[in-house]
């Protein structure tokens, strides 16, 4: 029997596969396809204090093995999220990770404070890495000092565990990772999208309404693997890995790199059944490769003699 369970702060998961923020709404749409309880956990779209209208369309473009998005954090705001969107997930028995975004530190603190008191959720994911908004977001993700302060301030606001979502668009991601760990983060999510752009040859203008966008999908998986490999050796808090995951093999690769759980984003779009398919494939694939427990995978690409082993290979 393959043991798929993983335990992360605030999230006891039946399996290591969860959804990535922004790629699964608040779960409702995909609940038409399968029982959401199949998932290890669910991460919802970014919530901000005020409603956000997002960027003008077009908001997505396809690239080689990837896609660019410039949604721009469109969301109904925390009040409506609490009243209309999050309650839907109360009917399910799975950890809910709420992605939070803002322009300045107080925004994050406000949203976390409000949601901690008003909503049923398992943990927060601080999106300090959205490439698609002009102020806030990404700047926290590239400056260790503000990332540290933000994390600390949010930790003081809530009892819920805090995951900080890191941007790959930095010179040294381990520096930011260490800063937020020091700030008290319970875990990390990585990676957010890679800044990119596509030009429409007909108009000779940037294709996306917001010009630049965030690159996701299989194209960025090698970048994610490298960063998870480096960061997992630099910190001791768990990592939710993401970036181009579309198969059980990809889940295993990100976990071997150092992730404790793995989120699936872009892959949901081509195949709405991506998550249950991957979860279904995992046990056989792990067995083939000689793994008995999902927890054993974490960091094994660099940590060969981690002990105690929960099982021997």
């Amino acid at each position: 029997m393959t043991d798929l369970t993983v335990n992360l702060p605030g999230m006891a998961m039946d399996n290591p596969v969860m959804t990535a923020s922004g790629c699964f709404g608040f779960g409702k749409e995909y609940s038409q396809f399968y029982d959401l309880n199949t998932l290890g956990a669910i991460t919802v779209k970014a919530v901000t204090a005020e409603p956000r209208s997002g960027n003008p369309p077009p908001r997505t473009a396809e690239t080689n093995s990837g896609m660019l998005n410039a949604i721009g954090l469109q969301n109904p705001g925390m009040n409506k999220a609490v009243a209309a969107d999050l309650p839907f997930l109360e009917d399910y028995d799975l950890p809910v990770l709420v992605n939070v975004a803002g322009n300045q530190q107080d925004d994050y603190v406000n949203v976390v404070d409000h949601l901690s008191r008003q909503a049923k959720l398992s943990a927060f994911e601080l999106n300090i890495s959205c490439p698609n908004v002009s102020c806030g977001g990404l700047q926290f993700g590239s400056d260790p000092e503000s990332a540290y302060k933000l994390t600390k301030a949010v930790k003081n606001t809530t009892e819920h565990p805090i995951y900080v979502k890191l941007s790959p668009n930095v010179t040294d991601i381990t520096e930011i990772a260490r800063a937020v760990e020091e700030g008290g983060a319970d875990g990390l999510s990585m990676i957010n999208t890679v800044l990119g752009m596509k030009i429409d040859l007909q108009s000779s203008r940037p294709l996306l309404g917001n010009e630049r966008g965030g690159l996701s999908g299989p194209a960025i998986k090698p970048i994610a693997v490298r960063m998870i490999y480096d960061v997992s050796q630099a910190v001791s808090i768990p990592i939710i890995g993401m970036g181009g995951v579309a198969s059980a093999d990809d889940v295993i690769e990100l976990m071997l790199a150092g992730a404790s759980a793995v989120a699936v984003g872009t892959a949901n779009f081509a195949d709405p059944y991506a998550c249950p398919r991957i979860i279904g494939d995992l046990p056989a694939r792990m067995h083939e490769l000689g793994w008995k427990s999902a927890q054993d995978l974490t960091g094994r690409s660099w940590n060969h003699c981690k002990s105690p082993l929960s099982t021997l290979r």
Partner: protein
Amino acid sequence: MKTADFKVISHRQIADHIFQLILTGEEAANMTEPGQFVHVQIPGKTAPLLRRPLSIADAEPAAKQCTLIYRAEGPGTKQLAAAGEGDVVNLLGPLGNGFTSAPEQDGKAVLIGGGIGVPPLYYLAKRFAASGIALDIYLGFRTKGEVFLQKAFADLGQTTITTEDGSFGEKGYVTDQIKALRGNETFYACGPRPMLRAVQEAAESKAYLSLEERMACGVGACLSCVCESARSVNSPYVKICSDGPVFNSAEVKI
């Protein structure tokens, strides 16, 4: 809602770059609403990352068949064009909300299609014709070689074809033709934005517009495919894939 494999019954070119793909599959039984679309996974050894949204051009739910008509333009649709008889195409759908309102009692339905916006109007025209609703059909194309379905539409109602270069039918834009209309017509339009804008302006009475935008999920989860709302204050955008693609003209700013 489901993804389902369909089998290619026939696939042929019907105009310059335009292909008609007839498919059969169980899920066609649910394709009862003209104006809905399917999200097509392009078959091939390595599929493109995203599905491609294509309107349901025709369907025979009882016979479990449906027809897609598309322009092979970019890499995805060009790859789709290589699918042969018996090949399998995976569809997600039917998706979205189609043309759900009939014209008012005794009113006329004016169907206005531009280029690759023409296909969904065919299924609509068939339905209206079957219900005895009078139809005025205006279809615009760039040039003669790109005209398609004109005979099929002509069987269902009064059909006027325009081409931009005058090589077939009336010369000019389809929207030139409708300026004169003022009455109890209800408009049903699908085509390029400028055409839809012209319809929106011209239409004093009701108009239903089918919109397009780049899509990722096709089911309302990713917020890719928005269009500015003419109504809502809090959420200034509607989602074309799940709120539309067909909107009452008064609902959207285009």
